[in-house]
């Protein structure tokens, strides 16, 4: 598992990816190994569902995702809307969101917001709720996630009142949905950078 540059160069667009996401060569290499582990059919892309047989595909290799309440939201976050495959570059770009934030990073105006900034992290979390990508968390979407997380220990009325309370607290413009800004505001006390970083991806 060394970071010899020669093997990194075997990966297409490695240099651009490193530039764009800030991953080091060693990380790109590791992620590529992981990608290949997941990519059982060696077709260079991860598929969502295997069409001919209708069986869950590559992400099924990660068994713990089956037990995760928002497992399928996580998986579908890897795939752009309308796409059924994800290639290595997109895989890396999604994972770049979870790099720890570089505190002393200075950006010149020309660069876009780096992938692992707090805003982008929050947006990713927002997507977990907002499945239809309309920019708002509706009550139904919130309920769905709540149900998945709280499981069966909670009755339907309790779920409703919890969701009600959550929307009441956050919804400032009274449109019965939580927009991204309201979402961000409700999480202002939480240290997003620490919480949403995977340390070894530094």
């Amino acid at each position: 598992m060394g970071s010899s540059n020669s093997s990194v160069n075997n990966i297409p667009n490695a240099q651009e990816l490193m530039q764009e996401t800030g991953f080091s060569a060693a990380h790109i290499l590791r992620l590529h190994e992981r990608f290949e582990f997941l990519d059982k059919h060696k077709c260079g892309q991860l598929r969502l569902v295997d069409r001919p047989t209708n069986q869950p595909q590559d992400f099924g290799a990660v068994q713990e995702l089956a037990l995760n309440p928002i497992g399928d939201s996580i998986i579908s976050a890897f795939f752009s809307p309308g796409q059924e495959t994800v290639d290595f570059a997109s895989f890396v770009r999604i994972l770049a969101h979870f790099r720890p934030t570089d505190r002393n990073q200075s950006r010149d105006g020309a660069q876009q917001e780096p992938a692992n900034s707090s805003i982008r992290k929050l947006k990713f979390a927002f997507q977990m709720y907002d499945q239809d990508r309309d920019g708002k968390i509706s009550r139904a979407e919130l309920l769905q996630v709540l149900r998945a997380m709280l499981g069966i220990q909670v009755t339907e009325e309790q779920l409703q009142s919890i969701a009600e309370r959550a929307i009441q607290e956050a919804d400032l413009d009274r449109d019965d949905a939580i927009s991204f800004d309201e979402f961000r505001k409700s999480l202002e006390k939480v240290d997003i950078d620490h919480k949403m970083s995977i340390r070894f991806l530094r």
Partner: protein
Amino acid sequence: MAALRTLSLLLSACLLWPICLALTPPAQLPQPRNLPPMLGFNSSDGSLSVDLPMALRVFSVDYHHVQAPFEIVLWIMLASLAKLGFHWSGRVPAVVPESCLLIMVGLLVGGVIYGVRHSAPPTLSADAFFLFLLPPIVLDAGYFLPGRLFFENLGTILWYAVLGTLWNVLGIGLSLYGVCLLAQSSLGDVSLLHCLLFGSLIAAVDPVAVLSVFQEMHVNEQLHILVFGESLLNDAVTVVLYKLFESFLRLPSVSGVDVLLGGCRVVVVGLGGLFVGLFFGLVAALTSRFTSRAQVIAPLFVFLYSYLSYLTSEMLHLSGIMAIVTCAVTMKQYVEANVSERSKTSIQYFLKMWSSVSETLIFIFLGVSTIQDVHMWSWPFVCSTLLLCLVWRATGVLLLTAVVNKLRRNAVTFRDQFIIAYGGLRGAICFSLVFLIDDFPKKRLFITTTIVVILFTVFVQGMTIKPLVELLDVKRKKRALPTVSEEIHSRLIDHLLAGIEDVVGYWGQHYWKDKFEQFNRKYLRRFLIREDHQARSSILRVYQELERREQRGDEEAPRVVDPRSHSRPLLPEEMDSIRRILSRNLQNFNNKQTPAYSRHTLHQDATTERTRKPLYRHQSLGERYTYNTITHWPQGEDEFNGSRRVRPGLNRSHTVCSTSPRPVLQDLSAPAASAQTGPVDPKPSAAREDQISPHHQVPVGRAPKKQLSFVLENEKQQ
């Protein structure tokens, strides 16, 4: 009234036994020498008999014959009746933990015996404790250990167990020596090694006591596994240090090499216990493979092999606790795949029963053994020991946590640290170890101090930990009340990060785990699990799960509540109940829905039965549909029949089924797709069910080969 009734029941039970004991002569029986020689029937065994000369004895009492098992059974009976009485006694369990009550019963019984016989009551012998009373408890703990949680927190647990125990031992030992130096007059003859020896045995956190107190407290499972895992693993360190200092005491002088060797010994003892446990676990798994024709004795093998592993490692002076825990963890998945359902339930029930009895006996004996003649009291020693135990544990936990929090994503909060530090209870292990010390002038002082520390920790700390924690919670809440949305979103982020870590394959954990799983699947499972059961893990289990649910009957569907009806501000008590709900249920971290280890009940939903692969909701151009696959029974027919178990009212975020080797039909996906375009809500599910129900009639004729397509949420475990 109920309390009075049970109290009287309890007292009568308690007094019955000592009266028996008091009435029978304890050691030797008066030989009936002055009686005329009998016909030789039973004068030789020294029994009491009605002395009718030249006549047949009609009624005789021969206690001596059954003395040993009789006494044992009476003790166990006493313990169990005490436990029963405790649970019936109304509000007392809420305040006083069970361990305290049992010790009090023991004190009572010991006092009665002492009063009647004017000699010390039987004490808990170290051998009986280590060989008979401790193994069932540890086996039970190891068998029901939440595996994934344990291994994910293994680093932290080892950190606390090894370093924390070392810190405590050295700290307490050295400070006690300082105290002894200061109080030269009374404590001058306690040497440094003695203090270190004492420190090593008093610093050990006891799994029995910890478990019994945490039962009643609501702690999240991560914290539970930290404290519990620490108490299990520090056995290796404790016992090694104890034996080390003991052997140092016997040596004329101690050199640096000896200390180094001592350090190696810790590693050897720990790893040795691990390997012994592994070996016996694998052998047990292999044996269970062949038990299909004699299913009734299958549970016996579990117990025999575990106990053997414990005894073997004790024989080799390795860590018995580690051996038995490893054995249980290793053999569990294979044994449960091999034996029948009934055997599995028997194993679990027996484990719970034995460990329960064992724990009760331990606490009662602790109480009884307190009443003795051998006490020696010394104010400075006892008080300083108590103080130092608390202080060193607190500082140790604080320091270690400060370091380990930097490496964990989920920081160990201040509340957790307080519980870890304050919940470090001492118990019967210290007690037995102190009896094993070689005799020296101040041994009685050590015994007394140990008893005092144990009683203090169990009573004072055990009783006050719950109110103190609640006080802390209240204080924390007063300062910064997290909003409901904050809690929900934080938990969502936790799940998200866990999922991403899983996808990335968190090196150091998942990498090895994946490798192990591959190895497991390819070699171990094939070797250790019966052939016809190997498919069990995927299809058969879920089929059986379905059958079970069918038999239990479906619960009624929850009402679909109109969302709009709740848009009014919530009352404070509703707010409180919401908070309580969230704090209880959102803490099921790592997606585990099983509650933390519970001593008294058996939870049916074993997580090993989860074999689910999700299907994904795929969004394509705003349209939503769900792929459904149909599983086939391996010998199934081609005709499709759906018997779907749908719970209307709950959104289907996962459509679950298991994979099958055969290609899957597509019949269902078309009607499903058409039925479910648009926003997901309960109605299409109901429509689907209606569509499918006509097909129910068809398979009646082919009962054994049912083909299933089923929908289960991944949280529904009951």
